[in-house]
């Protein structure tokens, strides 16, 4: 099956020689949600702007929905939906007017424009505010409207550039729900974010970009497994539990590993949280009472640190866009 997005050796050099994107290769399958993860200035937005035909690549090539972004930009624009960073909305217009304008720009038949706009306004729960000027909307409402506008022509591929940046937690969760719904409907989504949890929750696969280069790619689980396995940190009842017996029980579940501070033993487990009950039961049957057990799993932040040597959230990278 042809990829919804295919990128090879993509480069963008700005005037003055600034290399914002330094040769990216990636492929996104139809129906996949691809999380493009990186700190501010890593090259996420520049990459998206090339993929949505707002910027010409300086090198390499990219195909979106089967069309070359540099050679067939008009074909690409017909097939994509775009919600750019910081919801570029006309604050003087009402939500409904903007939706109807967007529908017209995307060639929706005049007789269908109102109905389509109303449907999407309902979908993102903005009916009550639809006839108010966008300038009066909260950040979350603007993002929802922006998302609805990007969906007006039922695009094959949807680009969301940091859709939740700057939103409060409730608005973020609402938007996550919408993206999850798109995912369930089979829409291909290219989602840039600097929030690890967002990528973890929504993305089928994640690409980590740092200083204009893709430094890691895979499912969140695979990326985490690359750097570490989930493990249980345990402490036991009593002043002097028999750690030898406990250790031999735990070895039946996985390799023992050096315990973290505060823990007495630690064991790598393949099953994650499902391993907790059998481990505790086996220890109990051997006469070892468990005082505490904690499942420790590597995070995407750990992955990011392992791949780039720096933490992701709150980090900026100078010199690129």
């Amino acid at each position, binding site marked *: 099956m042809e990829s919804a997005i295919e990128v090879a050796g993509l480069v963008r050099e700005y005037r003055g020689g600034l290399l914002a994107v330094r040769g990216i290769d990636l492929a996104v399958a139809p129906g996949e949600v691809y999380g493009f993860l990186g700190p501010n200035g890593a090259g996420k937005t520049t990459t998206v*702007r090339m993929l949505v035909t*707002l*910027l*010409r690549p300086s090198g390499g090539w990219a195909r979106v929905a089967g069309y070359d972004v540099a050679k067939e930009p008009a074909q690409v624009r017909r097939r994509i939906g775009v919600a*750019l960073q910081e919801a570029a909305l*006309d*604050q003087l217009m009402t939500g409904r007017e903007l939706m109807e304008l967007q529908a*017209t*720009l995307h060639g929706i038949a005049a007789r269908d424009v109102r109905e389509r706009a109303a449907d999407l306004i309902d979908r993102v729960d903005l009916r009550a505010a639809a006839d108010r000027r966008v300038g009066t909307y909260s950040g979350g409402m603007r993002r929802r409207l922006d998302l609805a506008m990007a969906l007006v022509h039922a695009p094959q591929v949807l680009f969301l550039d940091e859709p939740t940046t700057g939103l409060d937690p409730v608005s973020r969760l609402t938007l996550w729900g919408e993206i999850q719904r798109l995912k369930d409907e089979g829409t291909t989504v290219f989602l840039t974010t600097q929030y690890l949890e967002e990528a973890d929750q929504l993305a089928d696969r994640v690409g980590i970009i740092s200083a204009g280069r893709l430094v890691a790619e895979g499912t969140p689980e695979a990326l985490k497994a690359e750097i570490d396995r989930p493990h249980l940190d345990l402490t036991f009842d009593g002043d002097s539990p028999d750690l030898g017996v406990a250790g031999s029980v735990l070895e039946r579940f996985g390799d023992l590993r050096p315990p973290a501070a505060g823990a007495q033993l630690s064991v790598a487990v393949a099953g994650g949280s499902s391993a907790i009950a059998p481990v505790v039961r086996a220890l109990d049957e051997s006469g070892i009472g468990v005082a505490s057990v904690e499942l420790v799993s590597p995070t995407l932040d750990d992955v990011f640190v392992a791949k780039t040597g720096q933490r992701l959230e709150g980090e900026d990278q100078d010199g690129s866009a």
Partner: protein
Amino acid sequence: MLRVVGALAWRALSNAGRRPQFLAPLVVFPTLLLSVNVGGLSRTTELPGFPEVHGFLDFQLAAAIVQSLLLGGISTGIASALDIEGGFFDRLVAAPIPRVAIVLGRLAAGAVIAAGQCLWFLALGLVFGAHIEGGVAGVAIVLLIGVTAGVGFGAIGQAIALRARSAATVQGIFPLVFVVLFMSSAFFPRALLASPIDVIARFNPLSYIADGMRAPIISGVEAGPALEGLGAALGIVLVAGALSVLALRGRLRDA
């Protein structure tokens, strides 16, 4: 294409109505200058070589219209620059529309506003005693030249906005508009201008636009001034329109 241009023009017109602080100066400043000029310089008509007119107001109406249209051009440029600054321009560029429609939509709105500006000053003149010697045909000529010039000035504003990408920069050409206007025959007959302004005025297209609109007001419908005025206005439309499209291409290439 026409549907998209219409939708974008409608948006520009709606927004103009919702930003009275941008729309009002287009008529308020020229109206004030018109009243000051007519009130204080009315005896100018007694100067030797001044054309035969019913009153100085008749003569000054065309100047006020040209001034208003030039301000309209700046306003069009500022609105375009605000779209660029706010990111809405990117939304339009990312849509599957001919990109020239982005320029044409804004210019179409400028044409409607220009017609309104012309009618405002003609109505104002009639209320305060001006005569339109060319009658309805004269009004039509004023509208034709005025709307064409308004589109041309709007194209200049857009070209500057697309190059500068900043509303403040577009706003900054405001004083230049007055300099160029005063170096034309908009306010005084070319025969009464001193050197070197009279020479500059001869090559200033604003002279021909103002004279082309003035003739049907003060002396009736004449082919010569009307065609010269329309030609000058069309020349500005073509040159500024081309500059605007080139600036759009440059903006998209360099983004």
